[in-house]
């Protein structure tokens, strides 16, 4: 189910929150309504953690993670790191990364199996991603943009990319990621997908400007209509299947 909400009158929900299958990070806001919406939806299933990163509230764009781990930029303070280590479940590995491109959320887009990264990411960071998050890493661009983490978002069920992505690019990415992809917009025609929404396998949150058409696209590609939060089943797909739509 896709929920529409706002963070302090801004529709860019993906900037102020990070949603994965194992946990949810929410930034510290002026009013509690943002936090309470997430709680209402997710409290029974996964922990919802309030935090800041490096003293800022734009946590969604600074960190990258999935059910296996969480990567934080070098600007994260020790207290924040400790707080996160304490709040998150034990199987989630929390790791601070020394990387020149510190907005990891903009540079890395990942689900539980595959990650797409900024083409200029360091080699060590790439290894760390593969190690901590347990994913296969691919360096890619989306519609000519190098900030893959901003212009696409995908879960284990499907993905949404920048509207100007060509058909060939879409096919290529779909093959890499092994999930169905669609080009679309969020928040009334905004092209910055990952900043406008955040998604996991059974639920999605998007800005309140999102039109009904966009919501229906999101719900159909991420297969949210039938999805129920269930015990996360490991589905390791070793065999390569060509993209299925």
């Amino acid at each position, binding site marked *: 189910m896709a929920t529409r909400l706002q963070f302090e009158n801004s529709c860019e929900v993906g900037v102020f929150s990070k949603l994965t299958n194992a946990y949810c990070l929410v930034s510290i806001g002026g009013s509690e309504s943002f936090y309470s919406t997430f709680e209402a939806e997710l409290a029974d299933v996964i922990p919802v953690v309030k935090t800041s990163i490096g003293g800022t509230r734009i946590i969604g764009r600074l960190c990258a993670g999935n059910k296996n781990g969480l990567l934080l930029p070098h600007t994260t303070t020790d207290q924040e790191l400790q707080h996160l280590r304490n709040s998150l479940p034990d199987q989630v590995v929390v790791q601070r990364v020394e990387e020149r491109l510190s907005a990891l959320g903009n540079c890395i887009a990942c689900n539980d199996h595959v990650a797409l990264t900024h083409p200029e990411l360091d080699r060590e960071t790439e290894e760390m991603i593969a190690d901590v998050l347990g994913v296969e890493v691919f360096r890619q661009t989306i519609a000519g943009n190098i900030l893959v983490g901003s212009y696409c978002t995908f879960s284990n069920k499907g993905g949404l990319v920048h509207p*100007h992505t*060509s058909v060939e690019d879409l096919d290529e990415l779909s093959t890499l990621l092994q999930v169905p992809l669609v080009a*679309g917009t969020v928040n009334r025609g905004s092209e910055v997908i990952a900043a406008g929404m955040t998604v996991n396998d059974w639920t999605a949150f998007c800005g309140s400007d999102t039109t009904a058409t966009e919501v229906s696209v999101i719900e159909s590609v991420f297969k949210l209509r039938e999805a129920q939060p269930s015990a996360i089943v490991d589905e390791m797909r070793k065999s390569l299947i060509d993209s299925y739509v």
Partner: protein
Amino acid sequence: MAEEAGMFLVQQTVGSVLCCKCGISMTPNAANMCVKCLRSEVDITEGLQKHVTILHCPECETYLQPPRTWIKAQLESKDLLSFCIRRVKNLNKVKLVHAEFIWTEPHSKRIKVKLKVQKEVLNGALLEQSFVVEYVQQEHMCEPCSRAQANPDQWVASVQLRQHVSHKRTFFFLEQLILKHGAAASAIRIKETDKGIDFFFPSRSHGLKFVEFVGKVAPVKSRHDKQLVSHDQKSNNFNYRYTFSVEICPVCREDLICLPPKVKSSLGNLGPLVICTKVTNSIALLDPFTLRHCFLDTDQYWRSSFKSLHTSRELVEYIVLDVEVVSPEVTIGGSRYALADAQVARLSDFGKNDTIFNIKTHLGHLLSPGDYALGYDLYGANSNDDELEKYKGLVIPEAILIKKSYEEKNQKKRGKPRPWKLKSLNMEIDDKGRAEQEKVDSEYEQFLEDLEENPEMRFNVSLYRNEEYQQPSEMASMTDGEDLPSVPLEELLGDLELSRAEVGDSSMRK
């Protein structure tokens, strides 16, 4: 670019996304909304005028552009379109791509223009929209028309051209010049008087423009005056009538002049007897015995305003008995001259007595024995001139030849139509007696002959083809040795006449 480097580039096909509002499939654009949704969102014609009132003067078919200019334009013309576009306010906020008229009934007093504009909206998407502007045309007489209606003979400025000579050659030539340059296009009335012409204009600036035009083509002295007609006490508006008094210098072409001593020495001792060869806004003087020439500016002339000794009315015909060229042919000021000794006799003396004069002349290149020439008879003339008195010990020649004469041949041609004709100004002429009229006619005939003989005079005159002239048959034309100078056909302008058929055709097209 990658293509130039020879790298392999994957073909990029643009996919389609759903419009974020209505959900129909479309190619992605900057706003990611289909055109209809975008247009419903944003109206770029907001803030632009859709109804405009324009004022139209029914007398002169002009439209008012505030505050005061009236623009002449036909319905559905380019001028009207640009005028209408200018009247729409705030049009500079958007980019105008296309404009055209929508047909309206001519008597409906409505003009409709369809404008297509482009503007950038949202995040860089360029939106194009067309809309219709309706103009309501209100009838309002413009100021000059209302003034003309109130009092048709009302003039504000008058220019009085005068020349104190006894012939009208200058005015014939000036008339042609004015016609060619259209300088009197704005004159309400033109009146011919005894020694000149009066022009009446509806505004001072027109009169001034005319005075300046005359000042460029003739050496003139002018002064201006004004007379109060009415006075509005409350707003302190004064209405005047302006009069410009323009006097043209009395020296004409082919005149014989005796220069005053001061002028003679300032011009470098140019012999006191000189011939005037050309009059524009400066006077060209030629000394016939030394072939020296000089120019006198308007200012220079009026400082020492001298009159001519003999004018071209006093030309007498001579027959040339013998010519001996003394110096080679030279070109001075565009014309060729050659100094020669000549033996001439007055035509009135020829055959009757043996009065022969040996004179020097500057027409050596033109004359041969047996030719006729026109010149001034100084031997027989009784010159009552102050300047001449001042020169003591001056040897006055007996005759000075001015030009070659085609009198004999002209006699045959007189009365016959020419292949070309001249237009004339619409002048009011005082009715003169018969004798005066004959004098004027003969002067006009001489003017036409002058035009035929002088190509440089023709330069400033528009000659039109005479439709009524038929080519004389081969039998009739007898060329006796020398052809008369005549105007070549290439110089004639075709008269423009709109036939009824053409006019009807153009009004049919919409």
